[in-house]
């Protein structure tokens, strides 16, 4: 009886889903599989980016992270917050305690006037988190043509291929290709937006932030601050902000795997030994 009901139920679901299939197939046969879009045809995957922190043995390049921090501070932070990163975290980049304190003081963070209780700005302390350039989301939207600049703390983890995406986006601004307009006349980049093939829908609200070589002045001994170099450095910096524990994670991983490998070999030998008495090998 159960089997009879089962067969009926099975046929019911099968017929129902094949009904959907037939309808879909009919539509596909008569109308095709939907139209090609400009986003689909012209979107490009991120360029190759090689960072010191790549790979299972990679470690952060502290000098590069410091340069990236400088780019963030002088360029990105005008619009983008980084609210999950504290100024004290910069100790990872090789700054001393005194340097951190001085660095913190260069940031203005929201505070409270101890006498009047009114909101004021005060110099930052190492324990403060990086301040947002806007007091709230409404202000951020109003100042940016309704496109709220995303928080950058986790950007390198919040996009596929995050660091390469950041690097490609920063260096990928270009004129809209003529072929695109020929193929998709309706897809002209709207005014106020900027064409960038690395952005999912090709048109980005952010104006090109890195516009000229030497926009940021690096300290002596560092590479030339070309647009490409600055983009790489800030991509490396955002890899660190997204996961400051990356180095520690890999450093912990190797001994753990080594230990487990050895323990597993021992366990295998022990298993062999335990079974050797009862298990004649059988091959067929």
């Amino acid at each position, binding site marked *: 009886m159960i089997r009879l009901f089962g067969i009926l139920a099975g046929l019911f679901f099968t017929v129902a889903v094949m009904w959907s299939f037939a309808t879909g197939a009919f539509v596909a046969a008569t109308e095709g599989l939907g139209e090609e879009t400009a986003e689909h045809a012209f979107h490009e995957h991120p360029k190759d980016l090689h960072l010191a922190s790549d790979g299972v043995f990679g470690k952060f390049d502290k000098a590069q992270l410091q340069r990236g921090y400088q780019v963030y501070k002088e360029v990105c932070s005008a619009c983008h917050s980084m609210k999950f990163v504290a100024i004290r975290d910069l100790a990872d980049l090789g700054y001393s305690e005194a340097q951190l304190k001085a660095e913190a003081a260069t940031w203005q963070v929201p505070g409270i006037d101890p006498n009047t209780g009114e909101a004021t700005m005060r110099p930052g302390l190492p324990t403060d988190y990086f301040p947002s350039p806007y007091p709230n989301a409404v202000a951020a939207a109003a100042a940016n043509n309704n496109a709220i600049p995303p928080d950058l703390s986790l950007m390198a983890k919040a*996009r596929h291929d995050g660091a390469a995406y950041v690097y490609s986006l920063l260096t990928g601004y270009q004129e809209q290709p003529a072929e695109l307009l020929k193929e998709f006349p309706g897809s002209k980049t709207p005014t106020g937006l900027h064409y960038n093939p690395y952005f999912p829908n090709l048109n980005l609200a952010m104006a090109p932030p890195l516009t000229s070589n030497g926009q940021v002045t690096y300290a002596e001994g560092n590479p030339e601050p070309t647009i490409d170099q600055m983009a790489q450095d800030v991509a490396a910096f955002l890899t660190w902000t997204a996961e400051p524990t990356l180095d520690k994670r890999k450093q912990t991983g190797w001994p753990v795997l080594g230990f487990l490998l050895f323990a597993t070999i021992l366990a295998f030998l022990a298993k062999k030994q335990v079974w050797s008495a009862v298990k004649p090998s059988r091959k067929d």
Partner: protein
Amino acid sequence: MSFPWASQYEPKNGLTKFLDEKLPLPRLVYGAIGAGYPVPRNLSYMWNFGVLAGFCLVLQIVTGVVLAMHYAPNALVAFGTTEHIMRDVNWGWMMRYAHANGASFFFIVVYLHIFRGFFYSSYKAPREMIWLLGVVIFLLMMATAFMGYVLPWGQMSFWGAKVITGLFGAIPVVGEPIQVWLLGGFAPDNAALNRFFSLHFLLPFVIAGVVILHIWALHIPGSSNPTGVEIKTEADTVPFHPYYTAKDGFGLGVFLLLYCAMLFFLPNYLGHPDNYIEANPLSTPAHIVPEWYFWPFYAILRAFTVDFFFIPAKLMGVLAMFAAILVWFFLPWLDKSPVRSGHYRPMFRKFFWFGLIPTMAVLFYCGGAPAEEPFVMLSQLATAYYFLHFLVILPLVSSIEKPEPLPYSITEAVLGSDKKAVLGENTTPAV
């Protein structure tokens, strides 16, 4: 434990004698997973996954309790406390990655455990109850995992919660009130997050309870084995300890190697980047996908794209998704073949390897792919086969098929002999 040759626990010193009289816990352990539990001597490595699943449950409970010490289930700070765990808490990053990847590995292990059961018909008499409890565990795991994924309050958390609770909205008349009741609001927010946290903390302990029933039920008939022939004599068995503790120990080592490689070197591989963006009720991610372990069922849900007579497509999808798991409850009574093991069932074996396994592969793939062609059509075909396989093919095959000759006993299967068993003999109980 109905094996007369099972060795009995003997307390050796004063303390164990005292314990044995007052609370015979050592005796229970000895008989459950010690030398007092005779197990078929021919279990393959496919029988490792039960113990591994138990290990995963413990792993998830331990790391979960730790995370709960630092996490706050409040929509304003949930995402921030998750980042606090990742950045500031000592070893917090390891705990969270261990928990997130632990969930994935739990499902890998449990899927292998279930498909082992499908191939060797572990659901058949006298083991129906073990199977039913196992399906209950799987359902509880799905609920737990779903609610756990909501807790970091990222974009996928939020939109996953919205989409899945939205499924209840497909139920006619009462659907929408149920949805609002489940969420404690009109969209996922604080109320939903808090109750999900509460239930996510509770359910693992419920699972642990059902796992104990699952193991209890297992010890009534004893473990099945790759031949599907029941235990006949003591020679067919070895004591669980040390034979299978040693084998499971090695299996655990291999499991931990793979798991730790993932945890330390690819911790976000199985996750979704969008969940590192804080939940935003005003902006939907481009592709909402659940965690990978839900993909087959998500594919079935999305396969129903047009109304079927008076049944709306959405309701049909929801019905099919739940039916896809509920059908497992009926397997012991759908598959009536007297032979258990797929090794001796030529027709069943073909449908398993060339029907069910590719179907699951397609469903897994399409469930994670965007809802566009050809993935929708592929998942429709796979869904059709899925229901045909369990509800039509399995019952029919079991009456048509002529099984291959079975070994007389487990010992014979291990040692080799010319004597072959008569069909049906394997169904006689051991004692």
